[in-house]
């Protein structure tokens, strides 16, 4: 039998819809795979096999009745980052604060997935409240990188990326505030997309930094990501920042791109993201990727975006500021953990004890940083100034997109680092998001597509493709063309070269 877990979501869906295989069989196969490898990986915080099989059976029943599939992905298993609310599973955000919290409502993304017949098998591990670049900040222990179990899978969505890379599921949902979809995808050899801000509803996405957070797809192929993008994207009246416009034609763009022609497409290489501080193997892999784009017919130009140098500091003021406010609600009064309620202490004391016990060090650090940046007397110098830098970054993007159709850069400066390597050095950790942050600050679309292995350590490298807001399809087209060419040259998709974990797990 073909290894179903190695199939793309598009292939699985086609076979399920043709009733060549059943969704139940596909789901069961993936659940078996999870059972075999997740003890070594720890990509999942919660699994619900029976519910997943029931959802799959419902898809099969419909198909047997002759109903058309609810969506092009009906019957395909998916892992949901544990930051989206689900009525039938806990939602913990990787935090002790929300251990065992069962939300009374579904996120819009959850609702759309269910309506599309996508089979949600479980919730994936993440840095606590999506703050981190390694998934080591999860209160429930780190996730490991399937390419090397001693290394991190990136973060914050390390669970989603690792689950997809390890063939536990063909699809996952992540969220990207400063790179939390793209950076894990880069270091796990998967495809991760941050859609245009406002393209995917944030209703039910537990907020880290409201003006930056965006949900998006994680997959092993560009087409699969596009198919998932169209399922979760679109206007939501429950999110005031949701864009009331059709989802960009990303599936069409992915299919068009796969024909491999980029003639006339102008690709800008961001000069700010190719200097020192990049792992040599990453830099070389990036240069090879750029050459390949040129071979596909793209016009390559170097583009300077000087404000991008200030993106990282601006981000580390804006995101902590917003998080200090967003996370204020976790106080033990209405839901979640409560600590120290001995009948004598006041609500104020219990709130402080609860927050002290419920949040990990990175979350506390950012809450205090944000509290500082928003304080009277510091606001203008920090938060206010960071928002001005944000304007400059938007202007740099606008000027760049006057010259080119897309911008490219390495997704992250290094390959996956070792577990524990950066935990005591917050600034080193923050550098992981250097190249991904500008797109969050400006709100435009960006993705990471596998760009081979770094020649110095044999670990995956990601190529970031950035497109203007609402032109997500452009990034897909370029990424799909690149993916096809790279796969041809290397004799198959990169991710198929991930070590066999069933052996490794023993």
């Amino acid at each position, binding site marked *: 039998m073909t290894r179903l877990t190695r199939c793309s979501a598009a292939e699985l869906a086609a076979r399920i819809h043709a009733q060549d295989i059943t969704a139940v069989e596909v789901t069961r196969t993936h659940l078996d795979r999870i059972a075999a490898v997740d003890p070594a990986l720890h990509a999942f915080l919660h699994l619900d096999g029976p519910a997943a099989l029931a959802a799959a059976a419902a898809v099969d029943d419909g198909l047997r009745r002759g109903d058309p599939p609810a969506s092009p992905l009906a019957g395909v298993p998916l892992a949901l980052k544990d930051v989206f609310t689900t009525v039938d599973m806990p939602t913990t955000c990787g935090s002790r604060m929300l251990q065992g919290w*069962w939300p*009374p*409502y579904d996120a819009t993304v959850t609702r759309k997935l269910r309506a599309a017949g996508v089979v949600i098998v479980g919730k994936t591990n993440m840095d606590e409240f999506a703050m981190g670049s390694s998934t080591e900040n999860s209160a429930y222990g780190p996730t490991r990188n399937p390419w090397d179990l001693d290394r991190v899978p990136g973060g914050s969505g390390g669970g989603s990326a690792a689950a997809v890379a390890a063939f536990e599921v063909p699809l996952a949902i992540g969220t990207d505030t400063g790179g939390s979809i793209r950076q894990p995808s880069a270091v796990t050899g998967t495809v991760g997309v941050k859609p245009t*801000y*406002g393209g995917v509803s944030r209703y039910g996405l537990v907020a880290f930094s409201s*003006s930056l957070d965006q949900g998006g797809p994680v997959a092993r192929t560009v087409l699969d990501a596009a198919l998932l993008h169209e399922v979760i994207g679109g206007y939501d009246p429950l999110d005031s*920042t949701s*864009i009331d416009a059709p989802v960009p034609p990303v599936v069409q763009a992915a299919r068009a791109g796969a024909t491999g022609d980029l003639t006339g497409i102008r690709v800008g290489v961001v000069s700010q993201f190719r200097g020192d501080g990049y792992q040599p193997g990453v830099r070389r892999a990036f240069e090879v990727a750029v050459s390949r784009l040129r071979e596909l017919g793209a016009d390559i130009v170097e583009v300077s975006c000087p*404000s991008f140098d*200030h993106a990282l*500091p*601006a981000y*580390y*003021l804006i995101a902590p500021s917003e998080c*200090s406010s967003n996370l*204020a609600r976790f*106080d*033990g*009064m*209405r*839901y*979640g953990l*409560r600590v120290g*309620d001995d*009948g004598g202490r006041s*609500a*104020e*004391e*219990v709130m*402080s*004890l609860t*927050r*002290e016990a419920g*949040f990990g*060090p990175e979350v*506390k*650090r950012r*809450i*205090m*940083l944000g*509290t*500082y940046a928003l304080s009277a007397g510091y606001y203008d*110098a*920090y938060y*206010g*100034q*960071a*928002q*001005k*830098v*944000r*304007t*400059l970054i*938007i202007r740099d993007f606008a000027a760049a997109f006057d010259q080119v159709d897309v911008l490219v850069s390495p997704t992250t400066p290094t390959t996956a680092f070792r577990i524990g390597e950066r935990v005591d050095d*917050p*600034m080193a950790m*923050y550098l992981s998001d250097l190249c991904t942050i500008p797109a*969050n600050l*400006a*709100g435009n679309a960006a993705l990471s597509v596998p760009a081979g292995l770094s020649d110095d350590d044999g670990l995956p490298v990601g190529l970031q493709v950035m497109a203007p807001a609402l032109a997500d399809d452009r990034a897909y087209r370029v990424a799909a063309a690149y993916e096809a060419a790279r796969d041809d040259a290397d004799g198959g998709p990169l991710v198929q070269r991930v070590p066999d974990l069933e052996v490794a797990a023993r």
Partner: protein
Amino acid sequence: MPTISRDEVAHLARLARLAVTEEELDLFAGQLEVILTSVARVGEVAAADIPPTSHAVGLTDVFRADVPRPGLTQQQALSGAYATEDGRFRVPRILDES
């Protein structure tokens, strides 16, 4: 270069309702100092005449019709509570009116 004292960290922790330990005060004072020194680079940008951006998308005037929609039942509302009493969330004594 910003400096942040242990007392300032303690003040921030109070504002943020975090009952931090003595060890954490030392740890965070050091780390926040490093981070703030780094992020203070935003101040290098000459941006006096640059308008701030609070929202990445340029939407305005997004409104909802004034039409009721079903919310949660009392049971759902209270489902995550640590303690309840008479249909209400039970919380420790509150010190004073805000």
